[in-house]
């Protein structure tokens, strides 16, 4: 610089203007190029002629091991339909929900996908989902479902979803552990509380629960909400006529505190994940496990398989209404992108897949993989080879017991559902009093 023969010329007044214009032009070009790039990606997905290839996007990254029923169904479908093909993909639940949200924003939803009902309801309002009524009407497919299995996935006369799997939830119970301590399988809350105290005194973890990144794992407690009148109350709660922090729900949360104070839950419940809670139960380290039918196959193969029974949960002497309630409801739905309608081949492939999934052959694949059928198909389960799955199905079909139409968290917004999970775990862990817990849920209801 010092040896430069001539000093740098002073810039004229015009030059900064040129620079600014240059920058603006370059910025605008880049933005246009990006916008064009986004646009073309969307267009090519929406408008290109297809070859009958559709994508089924699920809530787990490895369906082959994590959801073998769906994996096998897809393999069978692809083998039976050489002119169509389903590509199965997935991510863990949270990432999957994020991805579907972003895909809805950018109009790049996969053809069929699993999604939580709260997000599906938002998508249907926005016109992102296909009305499945014509597909269900064809060949009387609709008659294969119990009305309650489809009722939860309707909005403004649109059948926007079909049940992915049935959700039977409750407690898995290790009969050997109970037997060792002279405890009979409890039926009422008082019996459960007594069992918890006895188990705790003997150094056994009574109920395996894991909240770390899995606060949703409170299924048995959501069923208990229904034993305090949730199903009758929730429409009024959502419309603001009744509060969530009502005296009935508060009684339930006080019972949960009683369980917590009796030492029902593991000390590391907050740092343990749901998967670790399941592992601790399967290792014979806990007497009860709060879970659902999806764990039946795994538990069956574990060392506690032979000693496991399934229980719908305790009845309450101070509950509200029907106490003989077992949660046997449709889980989150399969939904179809509205764009599928524009492509005949894709539409045909989606229709064929839905018809295959809910056919008796499709439902048999579910049952063979220890998943309950979602249609009226009557499964033939061998209690000798599949004792845990048989126990779950028996609990779900117990005479005199009935199911609510939907699981409590599936009929509210994601924010309220999340607050419900936190409210139970908060009381279980002693971070929230029952009063604070019900209030925290009430605050999320708009």
């Amino acid at each position, binding site marked *: 610089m010092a040896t430069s023969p001539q000093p*740098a010329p002073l810039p004229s007044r015009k030059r900064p203007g040129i620079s600014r214009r240059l920058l603006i032009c370059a910025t605008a070009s880049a933005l246009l190029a990006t916008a064009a790039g986004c646009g073309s990606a969307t267009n090519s997905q929406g408008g290109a002629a297809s070859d009958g290839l559709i994508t089924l996007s699920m809530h787990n990254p490895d369906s082959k091991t994590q959801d073998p029923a769906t994996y096998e169904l897809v393999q069978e479908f692809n083998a039976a339909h050489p002119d169509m093909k389903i590509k199965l993909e997935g991510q863990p639940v949270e990432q999957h929900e994020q991805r579907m949200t972003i895909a809805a924003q950018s109009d790049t939803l996969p053809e069929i996908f699993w999604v939580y009902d709260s997000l599906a309801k*938002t998508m249907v309002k926005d016109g992102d989902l296909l009305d499945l009524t014509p597909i269900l009407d064809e060949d009387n497919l609709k008659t294969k479902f119990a009305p309650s299995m489809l009722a939860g996935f309707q909005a403004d006369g649109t059948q926007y979803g079909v049940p992915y799997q049935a959700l039977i939830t409750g407690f898995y119970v290790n009969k050997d552990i109970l037997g060792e301590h002279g405890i009979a399988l409890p039926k009422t809350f008082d019996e459960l509380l007594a069992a918890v105290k006895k188990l705790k005194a003997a150094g056994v973890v009574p109920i395996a629960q894991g*909240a770390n990144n899995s606060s949703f794992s409170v299924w048995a407690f959501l069923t208990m909400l229904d034993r305090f009148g949730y199903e009758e109350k929730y429409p009024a709660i959502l419309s603001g006529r009744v509060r969530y922090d009502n005296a009935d729900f508060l009684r339930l949360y006080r019972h949960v505190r009683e369980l917590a104070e009796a030492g029902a839950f593991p000390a590391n419940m907050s740092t343990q994940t749901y998967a670790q809670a399941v592992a601790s139960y399967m290792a014979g380290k806990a007497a009860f496990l709060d879970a659902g039918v999806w764990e039946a196959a795994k538990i069956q193969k574990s060392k506690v398989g032979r000693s496991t029974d399934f229980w719908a949960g305790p009845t309450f002497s101070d509950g509200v209404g029907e106490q003989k309630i077992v949660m046997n409801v449709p889980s989150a739905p399969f939904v179809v992108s509205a764009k599928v309608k524009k492509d005949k081949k894709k539409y045909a492939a989606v229709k064929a897949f839905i018809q295959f999934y809910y056919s008796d052959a499709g439902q048999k694949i579910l049952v063979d993989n220890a998943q309950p059928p979602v249609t009226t198909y009557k499964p033939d389960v061998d209690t000798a080879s599949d004792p845990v799955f048989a126990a779950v199905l028996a609990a779900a079909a117990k005479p005199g017991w009935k199911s609510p139409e939907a699981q409590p968290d599936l009929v509210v917004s994601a924010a309220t559902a999340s607050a419900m999970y936190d409210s139970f775990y908060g009381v279980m862990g002693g971070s929230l009093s029952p009063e604070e817990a019900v209030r925290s849920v009430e605050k999320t209801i708009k």
Partner: protein
Amino acid sequence: MNWLTTRRHFALMIAPALLIYSLYMIYPILYSLYYSFTDYDGVSATTFSGLDNYRHMAADPVFWTSLRNTGVILGIALLLLIPLGFLLAVLLSGRVRGSGALRALVFAPAIVAPILVGLIWIFILDPQIGLVNAFLLAIGVPAHPQWIGGPTLSPYSIAFVYLWQQIGFVLTIFYAGIRMLPRDVLEAAGLDGATRLQQLRYIQIPMLRETFGIVTALVVTGVFKVFELVFALTGGGPVHLSEVMVSYMYHITFTTQQYGYGMALAVVVFVVGALASGATFLGNRRREKQS
């Protein structure tokens, strides 16, 4: 050289970087700011809701908990991480046998992904299966503190794990700074009878002022990005008592699908982070001018 100094050519040279910066930094910030004034749910059309999200934030106890927890981590990082990192660098810069291996050992956690660091520390801090409580039990201490997963200690434990993870990085910067110091100044001080402590206090620390400034800025900005550690160690629990600002923002945006509120939290994280970083840089500049 002359070509480079004209404004036109200068503008041309910086344009690509400015474009990329605008697209990937400025645009998302403005985008977040816009959505923070709406009730966006991630899918439906947005409705302008004014300052509702910010009012909601002011009344949200979990937000204040997350802010306090971020402050705890920042405080521990400033009070312990920087002094400890410096002291270790001083110790290892001396003629210590095996100091190279020790430096590598101390630096090792910094190259492990934070999510793995979290998983490793679960096995150490977990109240039931963790090594710390097992050790306490072995030496006859009956108490089983809830290092993580309890309502009190979680943020401190997270801060400690962050310290463990970052100390090698901080040490390395200080070590490089110490190695750059002119040896003759220290030798002269030694000949004049200055003790090791006096050399440290009156020569090394003043000459490393710029390094301290850089480390402080890096630590402050780093604290506002802590996420994976919380995610792996506690998931923000129990009931959000160990959330930091970023993890709470993630929970609100992606778990509860309140994108509008989540963007308002993102804006506040950005503003608080920018203010803290700005204050650090300003302090550094002031000290530079004074020296």
